[in-house]
């Protein structure tokens, strides 16, 4: 399972490898999206290295600790140059209830967490994955990234930041980067993406400001919570540049490639008035060379404080959503928007201040944020009713608002829907930079957004897959559900919408998401079944691992459901009260078993 380090040449490159310049010819088209992976990997390496040296590791493979310490200085140097996820000490995951809940999954794995040299060995000197990411994804899928030597479950042993880093990397690669991208390519794009995000934030401010001018003031900081009936949407609907049209065209032609689609989509939307980087709109590799460099970055740094006025060109066209199969985006003017941006802003703020505090132990830097900084951040986004919260939660809420609001602008077809804050919270815990978190969230939402659609098509499709899985696996249970008129599986609604976030603990959620994303990344990267044949997890990657896991959680209760429950209400209640009673590893075990036996049947029935 492990990479044989002796076969890998770049292992000793340490920090140096990051400083080399990638040949431009290697830029892949699909890379046009990404910028974050560089940071993710770098940080991962940084953390892996630094944390590893401080942990006592009795295994033979810890011989690599010498290499990690020797290279740590260059990492530290790089840290100031490169993007770092968090400037704090590594996130720590101190406790785990997994000791008593060991499943066969965890027992099966007697593997090591990735050591620094192993990290390095995954990459070429240019920072590309050597094998297109196959090994990396395999490791994530099998829970390896965060596994520790003693197999004390991934998160239990962590003085290190393995779990977080695994998450960040998988997330970044899954949602944003091409597995073939090099470090330089990612860096370049990262800058571009940061500017795009900052532009979105400025738009948010402008909309708030304009709204305040046109509607009566109702609150502090000029945020009007008065039901401005669609005013924004109308204003935003103003004719936009031709770029929008071209972007839309490119969107449809690239529908099958999510990576490119996103790139084409939002860069066009967001950069369309920006002369210096206008041509980035074309989602191909040439765009990379036109990036207007860092010269603008300082100007944009304090977006939340100042922003230029009267630039209608930056307005977002509501039709510019990453549309897939939605029947309702034919014309811009026919958006079925019953909720408007003002409504979203209001609900976002409400939800942000009541976000749960489970993340706090996992980000020391954010947990220890000062009162001043927290309040400043809160004021910048017009948070309200937060006086009862401690600084770290205020800060967290402010970040949620900033990113969710930007997302609502970015994807006005979905806007904001309750549940999205649940999905974003772990991401901002891991990523301390808002713009990085934003783009990861965008990628995350690529799939999840369908669950939030107004027409409910997405959620119904998901529920029907869960139903099919149960039907195929357990006809007895299914017949019982039919009798209770519960075969539509609406009782797992919440699990689908917030991806088990409410049922699992914070740590468990990260485990599940990581494995899930690795599956999706593998599929996207075209890593087919054959590539998995030699590994222990024989279940092929599936886009719907979550749904198999959900079905598994229901199947685990089959006896109770069949013998005791005589209405759908009771099953719903059972599902809603699973929090704290689930073993994520057992769940993944069961889910993978289901995938192995059923995926062909399920997938053919869907197509």
């Amino acid at each position, binding site marked *: 399972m492990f990479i044989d380090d002796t076969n890998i040449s770049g292992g000793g490159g340490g920090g140096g490898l990051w400083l080399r310049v990638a040949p431009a010819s290697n830029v892949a088209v699909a890379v046009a999206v990404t910028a974050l992976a560089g940071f993710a990997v770098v940080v991962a390496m940084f953390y892996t290295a630094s944390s590893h040296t401080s942990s006592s590791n009795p295994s033979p493979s810890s011989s690599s600790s010498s290499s990690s310490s020797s290279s740590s200085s260059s990492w530290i140097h790089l840290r100031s140059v490169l993007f770092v996820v968090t400037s704090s000490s590594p996130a720590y995951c101190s406790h785990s209830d997994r000791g008593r809940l060991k499943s066969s999954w965890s027992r099966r794995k007697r593997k090591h967490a990735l050591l620094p040299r192993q990290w390095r060995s995954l990459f070429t000197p240019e920072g590309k994955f050597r094998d297109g990411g196959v090994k990396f994804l395999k490791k994530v899928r099998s829970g390896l990234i965060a596994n520790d030597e003693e197999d004390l479950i991934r998160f239990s042993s962590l003085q290190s930041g393995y779990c977080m880093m695994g998450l960040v990397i998988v997330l970044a690669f899954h949602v944003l980067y091409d597995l073939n991208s090099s470090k330089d390519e990612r860096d370049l794009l990262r800058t571009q993406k940061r500017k795009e995000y900052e532009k979105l934030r400025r738009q948010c401010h402008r909309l708030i400001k304009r709204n305040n001018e046109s509607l009566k003031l109702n609150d502090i900081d000029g945020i009007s*919570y*008065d*039901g401005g009936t669609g005013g924004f949407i109308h204003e935003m609907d103003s004719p936009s540049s031709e770029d929008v049209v071209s972007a839309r065209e490119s969107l449809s032609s690239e529908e099958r490639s999510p990576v490119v689609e996103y790139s084409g989509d939002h860069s066009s939307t967001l950069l369309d008035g920006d002369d210096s980087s206008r041509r980035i709109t074309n989602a191909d590799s040439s765009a990379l060379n036109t990036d207007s460099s860092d010269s603008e970055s300082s100007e944009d740094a304090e977006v939340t404080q100042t922003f230029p006025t009267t630039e209608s060109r930056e307005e977002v066209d509501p039709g510019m959503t990453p549309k897939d199969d939605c029947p309702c985006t034919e014309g811009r003017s026919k958006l079925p928007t*019953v*909720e408007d941006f003002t*409504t979203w802003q209001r*609900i976002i703020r*409400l*939800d942000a*201040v*009541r*976000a*749960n505090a489970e993340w706090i132990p996992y980000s020391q830097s954010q947990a220890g944020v000062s009162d001043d900084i927290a309040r400043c951040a809160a004021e910048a986004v017009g948070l309200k009713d937060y006086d009862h919260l401690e600084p770290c939660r205020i800060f967290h809420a402010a970040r949620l608002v900033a990113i969710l609001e930007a997302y609502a602008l970015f994807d006005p077809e979905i806007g904001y*829907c*309750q*549940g999205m*804050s*649940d999905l974003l919270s772990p991401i901002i815990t891991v990523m301390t930079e808002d713009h990085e978190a934003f783009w990861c969230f965008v990628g995350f939402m690529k799939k999840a957004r369908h669950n*939030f659609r*107004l027409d*409910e098509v997405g959620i119904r499709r998901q529920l029907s897959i869960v139903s099919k899985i149960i039907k195929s696996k357990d006809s007895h249970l299914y017949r*019982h559900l039919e*009798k*209770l*008129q*519960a075969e*539509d599986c*609406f009782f797992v*609604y*919440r699990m689908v*919408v*917030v991806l088990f976030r*409410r049922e699992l603990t914070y740590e468990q959620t990260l485990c599940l998401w990581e494995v899930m994303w690795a599956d999706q990344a593998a599929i996207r990267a075209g890593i087919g079944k054959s590539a998995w044949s030699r590994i222990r997890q024989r279940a092929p990657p599936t886009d719907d691992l979550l749904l198999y896991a959900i079905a598994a959680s229901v199947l685990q209760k089959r006896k*109770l459901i069949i*013998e*005791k*429950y*005589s*209405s*759908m*209400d*009771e099953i*719903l*209640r*059972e599902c*809603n*009260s699973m929090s704290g009673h689930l073993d994520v590893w057992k769940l993944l075990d069961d889910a993978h078993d289901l995938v192995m036996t059923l995926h062909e049947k399920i997938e053919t029935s869907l197509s």
Partner: protein
Amino acid sequence: MGSSSGQSNSYDLSFKILLIGDSGVGKSSLLVSFISASTNDLAPTIGVDFKIKLLTVGGKKLKLTIWDTAGQERFRTLTSSYYRGAQGIILVYDVTRRETFTNLSDVWAKEVELHLTNKDCVKMLVGNKVDRESERAVSREEGMALAKELGSLFLECSAKTRENVEQCFEELALKIMEVPSLLEEGSNAVKRNILKPKEGHPAPPGGGCC
């Protein structure tokens, strides 16, 4: 887990009550405040959830199944299927946010008329968060006027201080028991449970939402 079964003979009547209203008005808080006396901040409700409370009102042992729904508009298709079979509906607004009040008459009252199965169903208007008196944006008189218009009961309460929280559910239950058709539904639900505690065939088509 499974605690709701096997209680079939410990109560005389069983009623279904639904909580509706805009996001963040405190529906879940009201429910939790009633059930467990806890007054913490709660994460937004996704979809629907429900809790069961056994209590004695007017000499009768009642089982209240109280459904909590997500407030955001786009969950409405989902939540609307839960109106079916309800004997009581609590329409909640936040006294510090005026639009949550106007939405009750503009939006929620219409939803109720559209989806209710028993037209006798008792409605109750509840203004939450009266602990924040200084921020009040809807007067008590306005609340009473709307209640009159909707033909509903009216109370102001605070899930946080628990002021009027129990009264809210108890008054509603009392009123339900005064309505013969609802009373019958409530006792039928109990009989059904006793007669066939766990037969295969569905009791009320309660939450079916195809």
